[in-house]
Every structure is written in C-alpha cells, then in structure tokens.
C-alpha cells in the first residue's frame, strides 16, 4: 500500500509540476489541481497508513491510541481540500477573465511570435 500511495503522489506531483510550467492557462490550472491532489494525499500519508482503524474514539473499544488512526491529518486534509477548491475556482474565474480580455489563453496574455 505504501508503494501505491507514494507512486500515486509522485506521478501526480510530477505531472502537476510539468503542467504548471506549460504556457497555456488551462494546462496551468490542471497542473495546480493535480499538485493539490498530490499534496492532499501526502498530508494523509503523514498520519501513517492504517487499514481499518477509525479516527474517532469508539466508547465500546476505549481510548487506547493504538486502536485508532491519527485524526489530525484527516482534519487538515479536509481544510486543505476546501481551501484548495476555493482558490482553484477563483483562479478559474481569473483565467476566463484573462482569456476574455486578451483574446489568448497564453499565461502572459500575448502569443509568442515564433508560433
């Protein structure tokens, strides 16, 4: 499971970084989304991987920490998802405004001459 998770994070982060270095705004926003997925999975992984362990204390089982998974990274991931979603949505609006105002989807607002 560790291998799958780290591969997933690595592939998404790599593709994300490649895409945000591309010249089109749409590529950049997809890159940012992929990067934020990678980061969210990474935060999740920082709580150590556990299968079948709940994050919330069950009154029947008692409060032995060995029975539970760390709830803090899950809370952090939730916050990060919300914030990431909001900022990506905002970026999408700016992207559309830029497209409308400059007539091109290049990140600099002008088409390079050699294309």
């Amino acid at each position, binding site marked *: 499971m560790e291998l799958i998770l780290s591969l997933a994070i690595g592939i998404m982060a790599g593709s994300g970084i490649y895409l945000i270095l591309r010249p089109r705004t749409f590529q950049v926003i997809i890159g940012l989304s992929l990067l934020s997925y990678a980061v969210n999975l990474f*935060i999740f*992984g920082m709580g150590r991987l556990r299968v079948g362990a709940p994050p919330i204390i069950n009154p029947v089982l008692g409060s032995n920490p060995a029975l539970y998974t760390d709830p803090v990274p899950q809370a*952090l991931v939730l916050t990060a998802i919300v914030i990431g979603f909001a900022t990506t949505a905002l970026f999408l609006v*700016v992207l559309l405004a830029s497209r409308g105002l400059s007539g091109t989807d290049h990140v600099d607002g002008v088409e390079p001459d050699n294309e």
Partner: protein
Amino acid sequence: MNPWLNHLPILPVLLPMLTGTVLLLSSDSRHGPRTALALFATLAQLVVALALLALTDGQLDGWPGGVGLYALGNWAAPFGIVLVVDRLAAVMLTLTATLGLAALVYSLARWEKAGVHFLPLFQFLLMGLNGTFLTGDLFNLFVFFEVMLAASYGLVLHGSGGPRVNAGLHYIVVNLVASLLFLVAAALIYGMTGTLNLAELPVRVASLTAGDRQLFDLGAALLGIVFLTKAGAWPLNFWLPAAYGIAVPPVGAIFAILTKVGVYALLRISVLLQDGGVAPAPFGGDWLFYCGLATLGVGTLGLFSAQKLSKLAAFLVIVSSGTLLTAFGFTGTLLTGPALYYLISSVLGSGAFFMLVEMAERNRTQVADLLAISFEAFGVESRHDSEHPDAMVGVAIPAAMAFLGLSFVSCGLLLTGLPPLSGFVGKFALLGASLDSLPNAPVLHVGLFIGALLLSGLAGIVALSRLGIRVFWDVARPTPHLQWLEAGPVAALLLICVWLAANPEPAMAYLASTSDSLYDVNAYVRTVLPIPQTSTP
C-alpha cells in the same frame, strides 16, 4: 485585570470577519452606512491593537511576562488552538491597523468605486493579516495566510483591465504553488514531531531521532521557502513588481505590509526553532544573510530599471524586504530591535508612497512618460526646455503641488534613509548595531551589510530624484485636484514617521524589549504550555 480584557486577542480576527460578512451581504446602494461601518471596524481594530500594545507592555495590569494567551473554546494548548499575543504581535497588529485605516480612508475618495466588493475584501485581508500575527499554531498560520491571500487575489484584480488581470494571474499561480508547499511543509513537520503548536515544536524537535530529524529539516526548509516567497526574497520575487506596481493605489499601500508578513513568520519560527541550537537553513545564519543581500541587490538594480513611480515603489518594497532579511540573517540578536524600527518606518513610508504616486501621476499620460524617456535617451531637446525661462518665475505654487512635492520628498527621505526622518534613524541604528556585533559577527558580513545598505540608499535617492524631476517639474501638466480624503491619510502616515523620528527613544526602547521578549522562547513556551511537558514524541 478586568476579565473582559482577556478576550481582546480574538477581536482583531472577529471584528473584520463580522464586518466583512455584513458588508458582503448588505446592498451596494447603502453607501453611507457601509462606509461608516468599515471605518468604524478599522478604527476599532486600531484601538484594540493599541490596547494589546499596552497590555503586553505590562500596563493596564497586563499579562505577566508580556505574553498573552487566548485559548479558543478554552481547550488547553497542545490540543486546542491558541492565539498568542506578545510584543512583536502587538506591534505588527498596530502597524496593520494604522496602515489599513489610512488606505481605507484614501480608497473612499474614488478607488473603492472602481470595482465591486472592495470594502468586504479589505476587511478579510485585515482579518488574514491580524490572524497571521496572532496565531500560535502552524496550521492556522496556513489558514490565515490563505484568508489573506484569497482577499489579496480579489484586491489585486480590483479595477480590472487587461494588464491587471495578467499580473494578477501570475501573482495567483505563484502564491497557490507556495501555499501547496506550505501544506507539504506543515504535513512533514506534523508527521515528524506530532504537533502543530508553535510553542510545542521546540520541545519536540529536541527529542527527534536522526532520521526523523532529516525529514523535519526538509519540512522546515520548505516552510522557509514559502515565507521567503511571501517576503519577496530573490530569486522568488519576480511576481512582486508586476503585481504591486499594477494594483490600485490603496491596495498597493496595504500590500506594503504583505511582504512583511513573510518576514514576520520567518522571524517568529526561526526564533522558536533556534532554541537548543537548532536552526534550519532558510531561517537564519549565512544562508538568510546572503539571500537577503541578493534581494537587496536585485531591488537596487530594479530601482534604476523602473520607468514608472508605481514600479519604483514596488522595488522599494523589495529593497526594504532585503534589508530586513539581511539584518535577521546577521549573527547575534542585536539587530532585531533596530530592524523592527526600520520595518515600521519603511512600511508606513512605502504605504504613503503608493498612495502619493497615484496623486502625483494623475493627469499624466503614458505618452508623456514615454516621450520623456526617449528625449532623455536620444538627447533631444525637450518641448518646454528653455523657451520661456522667465515665464514661470513669480507664479504662486498651487497648494496641491506644494503638498505633493513636500510629501514626495518626505517619502524619498524615509525610504532611502536620509536624515532627518525616521528612515534615517532606522538605518543608522541598524548600522550601529551591526558594528556593535563585530566581535561575534564576521567582519566580511558587517562590511557587506554596511556597503549594501548605503549603496541601496544612494541608488534609491538617484532613482527617486530622476523620476521625481520628470513628474514634478513637468510644466505643461495641469495641477491635479486632490481631495482631503486622499491627502489626509498620506499626511497622517508621514506625520507618524516624523513623530517616530522626533521621539525615537520610546519606540526604540519598546522595540528593544520586543526583541528581548521575542528571544525569550522559554517565556513564550511557558505561557502557552503551562503544564511541564515531558519530551516523549
């Protein structure tokens, strides 16, 4: 101590949040009440910040040790979220509220109407700023950073237009990537130490195993990169001149403090992590010193390249960031007090400058600027060079021009650090402190610091007079019309600087004790974690 005073630390976050929400929901047609509410809320923040300043100084039966703690929901520190007020936080809050009030009043004259939702966004920006200074928790630092940045994305686009959207696009991408790095850093630090509480970090770090320590250092390095990006350190600052130069003036003015947030976070975390001889690379020492020096150099070069006053103002922000980073990278702690004095004076000065620039450049067209540059470059006689040299003699100077000229000179003196204003006091104190720390600090560092500081001042004055001559001695231009709402805030900010220069002792003494209490990590940790912590990870 009055029990109600204990709830003061939450107000700088709550006030702008509630005000912003009400402003967002109320209709635009209620112009009067909306303006009054925004003004009242910002004024109230200033009052609260001043009260916190007094409380941390031990007045009004303040907190013992000068550190105040506010546990949200009354959950104790390592488990709950806390707000911590010490002298440094109080100083930054006061600075934010002062600058915020000035920028808000200025914006009411015309810029607030240049787009929608200026007032609520402005309040949310203040909320993010205040929260960043108050929080005692790494993840909340991230959240308040995001609140601040989300509001700043909206504000940088205020007024719209092609160039603004384009610069805003770059600004947003850079900051989104930096935010993602922040998350990775926070997750790494949490994964290794098991805490996000800033006061608990030094306790936990001391007991890390070697392998965990490496990963922790990686997290800390990433965190440092994030803060350096926000602070506008070279080579992470290419977005800054474009975004700051293109933003509308009141936004530029409040953005003057945005870079200082990065500097503040860097200082705060570095001090906490330095305890026990652990200071990860980007937070201090040679690394930060040379990074600051490079920033200073790039900013200085940028001053010469700027062809517009607003661009020049943006580069002056980079120069002041560079100066601060270099000072904090210095060996020893002697420079912190003077650096904070310099920070206050430079934030107020650049805030005033951003607002002044727009007033001075009003009625001037891009074409006039371009012509002036090409005249200069090709040595062509200017239009009105020596046609009627006597025509202007004896003409009364309009009050508006006199005010603009005087303010421009004051801003120039402030930002380049020439006497007699507070910029000079700050730089002089910095130079003095760097010489005082000589036996401990390498001679090379002291020499480089003094040289860079003096050179950047010289470059600043050359660049400012070059552009100033072009703007102010342009006879052909009509006199701009100023409103009291616009001139007032600039004058107020400059008068504060004059006061700071005239009475440097109380400010310097307060900032020296600020620096002392900042480096007294034990007092901070003891206030936040009253129960003695066992250092088991």
